[in-house]
């Protein structure tokens, strides 16, 4: 009888996760323009992807993106959270300030950076340039476009990690912190030997989620550069979007989506193994 309680969630999962996922996987083996009847083409879409240099550029950009987001915002978040823990005064205020970018809609954040900061016409970059110190718009250079977008996403994202880490740090037993203080531990020693080990599960989860989210990144890239200039900031999700909605090649887009999912799946498998190990201990 108690198994009946599973039915509502099971139905929701089947309807909004399993069926679309199964359809996407099936479409990856078809040629479809999004309007007519799909035609089965076997592995042709995947073969096309392997031969497509833009796909490899996009995959490379996703890897760079993941590397950036696995290090910079996590380091910034940890540092700020630890400092808030040590110096409690004003921590509530700083939490709000750090978290604020997270509650602003992505589209607004992106447009603010594009128009008010990076733009050579209406932005701060333009103001500095007119003052005699040329500052190029990073979104317009092939060598910096991806990093220009990453800065915007970092600004929006790191505060969230900071608040999460701060919440986790507050759960570290006070006795351990006090003991370390009495023993004369420095700030870095406290961080290295007491605080970080204390919140390791949270850091691991955030790193796993960062990898998954990094392969799903779309909004900031699409709004700020649409993958350009010259594909320099193309990522897998913008490639999939362009294939599906501009090239009318939904099969190819589904194949890209399957590749994205494989990365997510692999990361999730690692996380589950790590969790299982922790339970065993």
């Amino acid at each position, binding site marked *: 009888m108690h198994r009946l309680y599973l039915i509502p969630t099971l139905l929701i999962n089947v309807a909004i996760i399993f069926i679309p996922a199964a359809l996407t996987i099936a479409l990856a083996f078809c*040629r479809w*323009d*999004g*309007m*007519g*009847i799909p035609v089965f083409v076997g592995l042709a879409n995947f073969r096309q992807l392997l031969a497509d240099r833009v796909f490899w550029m996009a995959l490379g950009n996703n890897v760079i993106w993941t590397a950036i987001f696995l290090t910079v915002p996590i380091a910034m978040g940890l540092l700020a959270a630890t400092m808030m823990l040590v110096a409690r005064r004003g921590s509530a205020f700083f939490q709000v300030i750090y978290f604020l970018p997270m509650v602003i809609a992505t589209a607004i954040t992106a447009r603010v950076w*594009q128009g008010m900061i*990076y*733009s*050579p*016409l209406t932005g701060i970059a333009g103001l500095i340039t007119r003052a005699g110190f040329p500052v190029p*718009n990073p*979104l*317009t250079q*092939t060598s910096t476009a991806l990093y220009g977008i990453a800065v915007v996403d970092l600004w929006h994202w790191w505060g969230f990690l900071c608040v999460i880490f701060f919440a986790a740090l507050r759960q570290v037993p006070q006795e351990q912190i006090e003991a370390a203080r009495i023993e004369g531990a420095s700030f870095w020693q406290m961080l290295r030997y007491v605080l970080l080990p204390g919140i390791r599960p949270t850091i691991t989860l955030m790193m796993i989620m960062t990898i998954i989210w990094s392969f799903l990144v779309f909004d900031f890239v699409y709004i700020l550069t*649409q*993958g*350009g*200039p*010259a*594909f*320099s900031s193309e990522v897998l999700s913008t490639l999939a979007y*362009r294939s599906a*909605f*501009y*090239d*009318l*090649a939904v099969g190819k887009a589904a194949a890209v989506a399957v590749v994205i999912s494989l990365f997510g799946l692999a990361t999730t498998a690692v996380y589950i193994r790590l969790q299982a190990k922790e339970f065993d201990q």
Partner: protein
Amino acid sequence: MDRRTFLAGSLGVSLVPFMSRLAFAAGKPVTWWYESAAPAQQEAIAKVLVGGFNAAHPDYSLTVDYRGSELDKQMRVALLSGNGPDVVYTAGPSYVAPMARAGQLLALDDYAEKLGWNKRILPVFLEMGKYDGKLYAVPKTYETLGLFYNKAVLEKNGWKAPTTLAEMEALADEALKAKLVPFASGNAGWRGNNEHYVTIAFNSIAGPENVYKALKGEIPWTAEPFVAAINKLNDWWQKGYFGPDYFSLETEQFFAQMAAGKSPMLPSGTWHFQYIQSYFKDNADQCGFVGFPSADGLGAPVYALGVGSTLSIAAASQNPDGAAAAIDYVFSPEFYGAMNSVWQGEWNTPLEDLSMVKISDTVPALYAETMKTLADAVGDNKYGYTSWTFLPPATDTQLINGIEEVWLGRSTVADYLAQLDATFQQEKAEGKVPAVPAR
């Protein structure tokens, strides 16, 4: 509040969205989904299109629903599920064939015959809307590319509007020396702006005959005339004709740059006429427009023909007659005059005879003259081909994105054209190339 009051109140509130239809809709509903439109443009649609149509057709009640820039995606999903509006607004002829092939559109031949579209609409456009011999779409607007210029800047520097490619290049070089950006241009808001310049190069340098042959598959896109055209376009980029901020400027920003005298020329489409009054303000006559000069041997400027959106009727429409009446209304001289008086460049319906059209005196005469020139060029079969109208979707995407790689030194002209040709041949084999009327 007790539970009964709450339920009654909730029921009442939930009925509010339907009240307008119940209370005010006298006729049978006709639905039309539209892309994004600025408040002033929505006002023009409400007054001229919806108000005008409903007043002229009391049996029908037209409603326009704004779906934003994602209209075509929403439309495809809706049609796929057998829903959607009565009037189907597509993003261009390349979208019509797949929809028609999937049986999502109604053949319009009977309406064209009954309502006289065959006599009123320029024949070329009826050909473009055909799939498998049947008419499925008519253009909502058609446009061309040319060269806007700032008369004051030209006069101040002793320059004159170019009539040949050599004159245009000489003027651009002079502008560079004068620390001006020769071409007001940019693609920050819409990457597709790239294709305006490739289209200009293909038509005004390679020539429309060669473009026609390539579209028909008689010559490849790697043929010498196209190599010369893209080489020239790349030369212009490398010399700095497009300026240092191309990837940062949005459409209205670069138009404002031209109006402010920072650029003498703006090569782009006739839809820019809508910005003249906003940016030139009281000096609207200071904005000039000429056909983009052609290379030696091509003669007069080539007017590349573009159709940015089309109108069809959904196969699942509950009111196809009402939808046909709405489309018919759009093809009336009265509507053309009233709409183009308040909003230029987006409702240039392909009427064969513009003599009955009356446009407000406040609209620059240049607009009407340009549209007349374009209509004559189309009528005389002397027109070129815009990429967004005549290329299949993936080829067009490659054309737009690939040119940035050429400009930024990440690809060669030969590789760019080879990839363009490979994509085109594949889509051609899949039957995705839109109809190309015979010359």
